[in-house]
């Protein structure tokens, strides 16, 4: 009985989505105006902030040294995160590597969900701007496992409405518009989202990371929110970063 109601609700929700081109969809010219705004992205200030913060830990050079790569190879290496790091026996995002670097340097690590960490993450990922995402989900069993867990997290229907990430972000709903916004196709290969997070979110007037965005989406779709940096969350990032493999990194992004 209960399941019946859940299914009915999600069908109703899908029915309320309209196709692009209908009355409240924005025109291409309007969208172009918003795209132009990335020229002066308020998050550029946070990225500059992140650079300053990293400066206290040795800057790019210190980071490269900690990650065990040369400064020249740093951008390409960053473009491959999340990665399996043997030292921690975990698949981790760059933010977790920054935390580890702080701890190993004798500092109290910043929280993953703190604003300063978002700025640091945005700066560090922006080092890889212009590089193509080169995550390798077949590099080792741990990455394979993370990818599988990420896919499972993406596909699992849960919460009050029985929705999964895939319910709104699968190829089936591409081109559909939810309250003026075309739903981004995150499930298909070639989805570019991962290349443009961290990003400035105009709705929140602040810098948000990809995992933070997942949380917002989960909250609004009535799914229990998964903590940033948890195994599932990193796995979800692995899964979606793989979908964006080959896309050129351009940080910070600018989102509605």
């Amino acid at each position, binding site marked *: 009985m209960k399941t019946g109601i859940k299914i009915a609700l999600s069908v109703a929700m899908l029915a309320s989505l309209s196709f692009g081109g209908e009355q*409240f*969809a*924005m*025109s291409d*010219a*309007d*969208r172009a*105006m*918003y795209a*132009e*705004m990335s020229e002066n992205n308020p998050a550029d200030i946070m990225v500059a*902030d992140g650079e*300053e*913060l990293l400066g*206290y830990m040795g800057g790019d050079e210190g980071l490269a040294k900690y990650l065990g790569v040369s400064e020249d190879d740093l951008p390409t290496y960053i473009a491959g995160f999340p990665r399996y790091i043997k030292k921690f026996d975990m698949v981790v995002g760059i933010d977790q590597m920054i935390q580890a670097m702080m701890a190993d*340097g*004798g*500092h*109290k690590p910043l929280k993953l969900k703190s604003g*300063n960490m978002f700025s640091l993450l945005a700066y560090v990922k922006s080092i890889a701007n212009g590089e193509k995402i080169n995550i390798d989900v077949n590099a080792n069993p741990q990455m394979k496992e993370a990818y599988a867990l990420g896919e499972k997290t993406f596909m699992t229907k849960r919460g009050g409405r029985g929705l999964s990430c895939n319910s*709104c972000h699968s190829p089936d709903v591409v081109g559909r518009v*939810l*309250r*003026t*916004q075309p739903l981004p196709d995150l499930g298909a290969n070639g989805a570019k989202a991962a290349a443009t997070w961290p990003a400035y979110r*105009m*709705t929140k*007037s602040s810098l948000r990371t990809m995992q933070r965005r997942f949380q*917002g*989406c989960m*909250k*609004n*779709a009535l799914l229990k929110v998964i903590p940033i940096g948890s195994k599932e969350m990193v796995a979800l990032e692995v899964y979606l970063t793989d979908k964006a493999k080959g896309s050129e990194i351009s940080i910070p992004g600018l989102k*509605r």
Partner: protein
Amino acid sequence: MQRRDFFKKLGTATAIAAVVPTMSFAAGDSKPTGPNKMDYQTALNAITGGKTPVKSDKVKLKTPEIAENGAVVPVTVTVDSPMTPSNYVKAIHILNGKNSNARCIDVFLTPANGKAMFSTRIKLGGTQNVTAVVELSDGTFLIASQSVKVTIGGCG
């Protein structure tokens, strides 16, 4: 470096640029101070001194027909002007039609700008007109206006 010092550093580093001596502003500069209430017509009169601005295609107002987000609406005003000392755009004013204060910004230009353009982002409380009023160096006022639909977009 101790933990505490690291955070001290984080703290001070971010505070450096904040304080500078107060500058004196030119006379006749009426700076807005408190929460303001002004309707569109009053605002327009205050700018033009009662003159009727002329609709002109020399003024290009670029703003979306449908705003993705009422909190961030890009607005760019470009005016076709040689920007020479004898013929330049003195000011570009941006007004909204329905916010509780119709005035958004007054931009006073000089020939040193080279080109007459101003671009910013404004908040719109709902669907309304956005208007650019331009004052030329010969005292004439030009105007351009466009309606912007504000919707609640997407999730979250």
